[in-house]
């Protein structure tokens, strides 16, 4: 990947998260959501579904049925990715790899999540046969609780106060209020954040990702093909991964070591570093993940990201713009897909009221047992 030509994201599409949130529908399937988003993405770039020769889907259970719904029987390649957020970055990496290796030319990346209509709770599914039964026997469940465990320890080690996450939650909501598609359309204040109820204490309600329905799609192709299309191409300049795989989700170094490994690879491969970045799209299943990400990627020294986000402006027009479409707590919980699409919109200059001025480099990062990260640019030169 290091000396290969970057692939181009040429089309993006998403469903209206806000209107769907107001109208849950038990008949709404992840296939429906994926098809809607793909239709929008094809329209966005002016391509036909017949241009697609690879279909990668995430959280939509059958790539065969999805291909049938889209009516693209004779493509070259297809695959399904499990609905873990880290996979959203992997899907884009794999799309790029398929193109760079010549196995495909135009890859449709499709995501559908009917969590709200399907009454998902992201916790409480008891599996007596898995390792998690040893946790569930004490009532330990849900990804939020595992992140909360890390966050309490982070606060203990670095003397971070109880309101350390407030700037992150408030920032997401402020940006969501500038985003017509966002589930949440109103900002929150510091007092409202601090008064919100604990879920897995010390995490509060406003630290948690939303549970909502939505579909997101991206079309990725070669730079040559991109030249003929409707919009300014966005390039995946470089991408990297690193793993921290073990029994518990909670990482004893808050994913620092693995994140640093991915950061080093990314910065070397792209020739870009934190000083070159105009906007950050940071996977925020829960707000503490943003702190771990900023530290692991070197935007703040270890243990100090909570001070950085307190002291610097992280708004779209501030020092270090973060999650400009509202993130997972404000826009929609699309497991990283919304963040990747927002990166594209920012780089195209299409982000409207929340547009970062002179946005030419966006850093996407997802810190989890698999760290995923890309540098996205709007210029190959």
């Amino acid at each position: 990947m290091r000396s290969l030509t970057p692939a181009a994201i040429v089309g993006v599409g998403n469903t209206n998260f806000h209107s769907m949130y107001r109208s849950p529908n038990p008949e709404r399937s992840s296939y429906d959501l994926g098809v809607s988003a793909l239709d929008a993405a094809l329209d966005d770039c002016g391509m036909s579904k017949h241009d697609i020769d690879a279909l990668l889907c995430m959280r939509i259970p059958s790539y065969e049925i999805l291909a049938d719904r889209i009516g693209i029987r004779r493509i070259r390649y297809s695959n399904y990715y499990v609905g873990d957020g880290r996979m959203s970055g992997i899907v884009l990496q794999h799309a790029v790899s398929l193109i760079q290796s010549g196995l495909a030319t135009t890859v449709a990346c499709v995501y559908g999540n009917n969590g709200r209509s399907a009454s998902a709770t992201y916790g409480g599914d008891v599996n007596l046969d898995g390792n998690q039964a040893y946790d569930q026997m004490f009532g330990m469940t849900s990804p939020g609780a595992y992140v909360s465990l890390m966050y309490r320890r982070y606060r203990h080690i670095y003397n971070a106060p109880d309101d350390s996450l407030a700037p992150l939650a408030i920032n997401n909501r402020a940006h969501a209020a500038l985003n017509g598609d966002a589930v949440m359309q109103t900002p929150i204040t510091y007092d409202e954040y601090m008064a919100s109820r604990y879920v897995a204490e010390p995490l509060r309600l406003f630290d948690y990702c939303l549970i909502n329905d939505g579909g997101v799609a991206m079309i990725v192709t070669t730079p040559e093909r991109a030249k003929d299309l409707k919009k300014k191409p966005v390039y995946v300049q470089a991408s990297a991964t690193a793993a921290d795989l073990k029994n518990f989700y909670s990482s004893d170094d808050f994913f620092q070591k693995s994140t640093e490994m991915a950061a080093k690879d990314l910065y070397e491969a792209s020739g870009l570093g934190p000083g070159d970045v105009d906007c950050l799209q940071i996977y925020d299943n829960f707000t503490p993940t943003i702190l771990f990400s900023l530290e692991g990627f070197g935007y703040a020294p270890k243990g100090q990201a909570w001070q950085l986000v307190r002291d610097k402006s992280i708004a779209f027009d501030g020092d270090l713009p973060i999650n400009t479409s509202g993130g997972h707590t404000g826009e929609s919980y699309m497991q990283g897909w919304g963040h990747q699409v927002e990166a594209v919109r920012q780089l195209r200059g299409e982000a409207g009221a929340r547009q970062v001025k002179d946005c030419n480099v966006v850093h996407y990062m997802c810190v989890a047992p698999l760290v995923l990260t890309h540098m996205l640019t709007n210029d190959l030169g």
Partner: protein
Amino acid sequence: MSYDKPLPRFTSTNRPYWDSLNRGKFSMQCCEACGHMQFPPQPSCANCLSFDHMGWKEVSGRGRIWSGIVMHKTYIRSFGPDTPYNVVMVQLEEGPLLMSTLIDGNDRIECDAPVEVVLDRVTEDLVLPKFKLSGGAS
């Protein structure tokens, strides 16, 4: 009395864990080939990959709180009456990590605090390992 909260399904691999607790002893799976201690119990050793040497070793019951949370939401119905309840992740002095609960109370959780196991009999066949804060340094 019956116990209505979830439990791992009993298997030949994990049976000794429960039998040991039932006899008043807290034990961890320990590979007899390489000495690696692991939790939860598995059919093979995560260090040397052997399937044939999995044994058990009694542990001291002492450890430290790595961290903890207080669950204010009832995700698992049988925990409804207990909500809000605490969960702590304990690092035993022998190395393994496990989830449990601190019997001292939700407001007593402190990272790195020394703790010791308390064997809590919940039915005539079932004992759960819970933890309490130790008196002094361990």
